[in-house]
């Protein structure tokens, strides 16, 4: 425990996870004295999750993550869904419609797999760079509450630290949210326990077996392959750099309150998967070695429970970020974006409140409103197809199971994500149209970075001294194109700004249109993918060669001095 801590800060953040460190980065960068308190000795080692961070988190989340070089483990350019109808006869239906087309895949991808520990440590380092203090090995055991308002935190040794605002990013258990009387403890039927196995595997084998796809498995109860009971449980396999993550999750209780014997269930699922699933048994089993076995609880489908959804996200002096505010919806793999988006909003609202000298419940309720109006957060905590999927499993209706898997993790997902994505897209270019070129740079930079993290060519990864002539012609063209686009976008900003408003009503209609038209464009897209898989191989390889050979700075990587 750190003795050099001051007695008071503008902002105290509880938890150095994805949300807490992003919120701290925001408030510290804007000159507020900011302290982050983390209970783990090393950041991230108490957060367990098999992680695909969806791309919309990177596109529309905090700028320092988008423009930085975070430690990603592998780009994800496709999802393969296995619907097991009879495992003993090896009858499996495959839906792999959701893939990014070549030649841009896997440089342009749907998301990135990452380890929480490395990623959150990187975020914390970035927050420290802009002035935040981070203290580890310290539990916040209580809150200082005066006149119904939170005024600071109590540490495990009884020390009090005052804060104008406490940003609570303690994760899904929400012990402090419950203590503050803001939220209720969640019922076990909306809580899942995830059993995670981390296997080491040679990168070449991961590349060959998984490529850049994650795999989901769906099955009926009696198959005992993937946990089908409760709200939307699943089984997922994530390819990492030189490893893979296998995660099965199961609700703690059923709707009728029956509690699951999890030890038995998880053992059965794991055994059946490794012994009966053909691609695991034949391809993975011989090449993978168990490195870590962990588990963690998280809340799911909180958004579908009206009572939980209506619980507040703030009180006088305190804002709840990420999982602590129930913004998690892991079944769709999107807890991290929600934590990032809410952290940015919390940071800004905290700043406004401190500037206005008003940290009352009334003033801070603007945070609740903004969160509920955020297109992606609102969508991710309410999307009904996850609930429907669960009904399909209960009714043993293969047709609807296929339909809802397709709508959640297949091409059909585009139909209902399109409206929120288009709305945040419009609001992002309204703020700064050059975000378009930062996205392009980000994709190339991230791909290059992950490639070099797993190759022997470490020399090309660190700080670089760039001399004229070191770059290839392709790199000069890339830099010129980005520079030119930035110029055009800046000049035409007023036009883009006005047009973005004109498109807003259209954004609301897009879901209906996309849903209606999916039958038309999906077969075309699937055919295109088939063609590109064979014809664009050369182009894809050339693009990858260009990306990995280029200088990091070509894609906007900043030089870093050690802190």
């Amino acid at each position: 425990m750190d003795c050099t801590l001051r007695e008071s800060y503008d902002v105290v953040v509880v938890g150095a996870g994805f949300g807490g460190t992003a919120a701290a980065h925001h408030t510290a960068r804007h000159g507020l004295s900011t302290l982050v308190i983390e209970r783990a000795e090393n950041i991230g080692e108490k957060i367990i999750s098999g992680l695909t961070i969806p791309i919309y988190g990177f596109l529309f989340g905090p700028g320092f993550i988008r423009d930085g070089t975070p430690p990603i483990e592998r780009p994800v350019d496709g999802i393969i869904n296995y619907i097991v109808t009879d495992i003993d006869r090896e009858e499996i239906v495959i839906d792999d419609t959701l893939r990014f087309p070549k030649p841009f895949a896997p440089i342009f991808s749907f998301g990135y797999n990452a380890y929480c520990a490395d990623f959150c440590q990187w975020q914390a380092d970035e927050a420290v760079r802009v002035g935040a203090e981070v203290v580890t090995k310290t539990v916040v055991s209580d809150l200082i509450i005066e006149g119904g308002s939170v005024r600071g935190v109590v540490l495990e040794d009884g020390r009090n630290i005052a804060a104008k605002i406490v940003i609570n990013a303690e994760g899904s258990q929400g012990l402090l949210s419950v203590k503050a009387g803001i939220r209720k403890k969640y019922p076990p039927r909306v809580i899942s326990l995830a059993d995670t196995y981390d296997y080491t595997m040679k990168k070449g084998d991961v590349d060959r077996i998984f490529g850049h796809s994650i795999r989901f498995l769906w099955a009926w109860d009696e198959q005992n392959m993937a946990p089908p009971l409760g709200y939307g449980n699943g089984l997922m396999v994530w390819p990492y750099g030189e490893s893979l993550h296998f995660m099965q999750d199961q609700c703690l209780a059923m709707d009728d309150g029956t509690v699951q014997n999890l030890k038995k269930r998880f053992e059965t699922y794991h055994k059946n998967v490794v012994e009966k699933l053909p691609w695991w048994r034949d391809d993975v089993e011989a090449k993978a070695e168990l490195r870590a076995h962990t588990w963690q609880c998280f809340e799911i489908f909180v958004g579908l429970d009206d009572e939980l959804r209506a619980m507040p996200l703030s009180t006088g002096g305190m804002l709840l970020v990420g999982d602590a505010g129930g913004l998690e919806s892991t079944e769709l793999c999107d807890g991290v974006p929600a934590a990032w988006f809410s952290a940015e909003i919390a940071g800004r609202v905290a700043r406004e409140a401190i500037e206005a000298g008003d940290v009352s419940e009334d003033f801070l309720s603007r945070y609740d409103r903004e969160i509920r109006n955020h297109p992606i957060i609102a969508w991710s905590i309410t999307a009904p197809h996850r609930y429907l999927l669960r009904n399909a499993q209960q009714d043993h209706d293969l047709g609807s199971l296929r339909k809802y898997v397709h709508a959640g993790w297949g091409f059909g997902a585009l139909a209902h994500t399109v409206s929120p994505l288009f709305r945040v897209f419009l609001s992002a270019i309204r703020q700064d149209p050059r975000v378009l070129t930062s996205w392009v740079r980000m994709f190339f930079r991230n791909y290059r970075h992950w490639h070099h993290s797993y190759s022997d060519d470490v020399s090309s990864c660190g700080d670089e001294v760039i001399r004229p002539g070191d770059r290839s012609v392709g790199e000069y063209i890339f830099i010129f194109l980005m520079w030119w686009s930035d110029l055009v976008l800046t000049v035409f900003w007023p036009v883009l700004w006005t047009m973005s408003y004109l498109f807003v009503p259209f954004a609301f209609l897009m879901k209906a249109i996309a849903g209606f038209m999916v039958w038309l464009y999906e077969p075309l897209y699937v055919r295109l993918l088939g063609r590109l898989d064979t014809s664009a191989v050369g182009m894809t390889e050339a693009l990858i060669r260009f990306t990995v050979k280029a200088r990091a700075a070509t894609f906007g990587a900043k030089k870093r001095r050690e802190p």
Partner: protein
Amino acid sequence: MRTTDTFPGVRWVGEPELFIRIDPKKCTGCGGCLKVCLAGCFEIVEKTARVRSLEWCMECSACWYVCPQDAVEFSWPKGGSGFHTRFG
């Protein structure tokens, strides 16, 4: 003895004090906490659950969520003790 054979990749640091407790007055012995705990931390003695050992506790809090009587008192182990992993 805790070994990495049983829980590979995880290491326990320090000797956590009893950060999870069961209030015997509230507990009805329903066994919910026993069923969800993958680390086998609980036992039922005379129709009441009690903590056997938190040696392998992964701080998942499933026991706290599942108890219908609110008999599980849950807090975090102090000072970064408890389980550590890098692969999460």
